[in-house]
């Protein structure tokens, strides 16, 4: 499927951010050659999967409250078929990392993620989950959950308003629709930018450590 042909009800292609990523993703998929029958089956399955993404209840902090709002009457993510929040990782498809992840929580999150059934996705919601956010200088906070688990969509905000979360969910929907289901699972592709980012992070970290040492 082409990125441009991707249908998302009531939103058109250009209103979305970061289409480049999807294009690159499709390119990569195409490299392997697409079997028509499989491609069709892929589309069917992906249609189903993209409209039935059950989140794991995982809220650690303030973003969790906004996440509750997403589920409440005003925004109602049930409209997208996402409403069945499962408490058991076995039955859920996506983790909304809503809130700060600290060192003590990191292994728990990792364990939960590991225990989820494939295919599984991660949405980092809020500054804390993306980069440590407000607490990125803290001694105990994980600087972005992608240090522990692969993240599919980043929803910035502190906390993001419910509609922003919906927007993130639509992004997720688009991504799932493009995937080659029979080529799953594979590690999320690490783009060059991501690498740069990681290096930058490492540098920051070193600088911080050095600064502490001097004191």
């Amino acid at each position, binding site marked *: 499927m082409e990125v441009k042909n991707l249908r*998302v*009800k*009531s*939103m058109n292609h250009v*209103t979305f*951010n*970061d289409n480049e*990523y*999807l294009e690159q993703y499709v390119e990569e998929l195409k490299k392997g050659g697409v079997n028509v029958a499989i491609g069709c089956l892929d589309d069917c399955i992906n249609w189903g999967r993209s409209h039935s993404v059950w989140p794991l209840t995982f809220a650690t902090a303030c973003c969790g409250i906004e996440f509750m709002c997403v589920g409440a*009457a*005003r*925004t*109602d993510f049930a*409209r997208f078929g996402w409403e069945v929040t499962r408490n058991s990782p076995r039955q859920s498809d996506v983790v909304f990392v809503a809130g700060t992840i600290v060192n003590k929580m990191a292994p728990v999150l990792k364990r939960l993620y590991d225990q989820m059934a494939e295919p599984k996705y991660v949405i980092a919601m809020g*500054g804390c989950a*993306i*980069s*440590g*956010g*407000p*607490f*990125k*200088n803290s001694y105990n906070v994980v600087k*972005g959950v*992608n240090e522990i688990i692969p*993240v*599919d*969509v*980043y*929803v*910035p*905000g*502190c906390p*993001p*308003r*419910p*509609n*922003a979360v*919906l*927007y*993130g969910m*639509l*992004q997720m929907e688009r*991504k799932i629709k493009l995937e080659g289901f029979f080529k799953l699972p594979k590690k999320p592709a690490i*783009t060059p*930018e*991501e690498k*740069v*980012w990681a290096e930058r992070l490492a540098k920051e970290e070193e600088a911080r450590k050095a600064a502490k040492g001097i004191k």
Partner: protein
Amino acid sequence: MKKYFTDIFSGIWNLLKGMKITGKVLVSPAVTECYPEKRDELQPKERFRAELTMPHNENNEHKCTACGICAMNCPNQTITVNKSKITDENGKSKIVLDQYLYDLGSCIFCGLCSRVCPQGAIEFTNNFEHAVYTRSKLIKQLNKPGSKKVEVAKPVAPAAKPASAPAQQEKEAAPKQENENNQ
């Protein structure tokens, strides 16, 4: 014995009353706002802080002097101001803004930066649709390529809105008085 029966009946009565409430809601219209369908009507209130922007006027000019006060005041180094010293034709050296980098992914929308900016060069808009697949895309360069600082002395008229935020069109009057209130 009497209590046993009254308990049962009052219990049932109260349960029915509860069901009446939900039944009433069942027939009244839903309060759900359909976000992507009614996207245009559902812009947040104008004061809502969702993204830091640097307004540019029609000549692609902004007001930032690259003083770095905002970056200094930011609690978690969300803003990076890269500046360079240049000598202009008059031989005077001055500092110009190279890159104004803003990390949407770690901003906490405290509004401190825009409050402390002596030039009023940055302000918040309420465009909240930022979700991306790559984290590095969240780092935004706020000054547009090729832009430079306006030469007019302050205070300046409010600059034109960047084209990327169409929702901002109706919001014109607000910034002026806001600037006055800034401490």
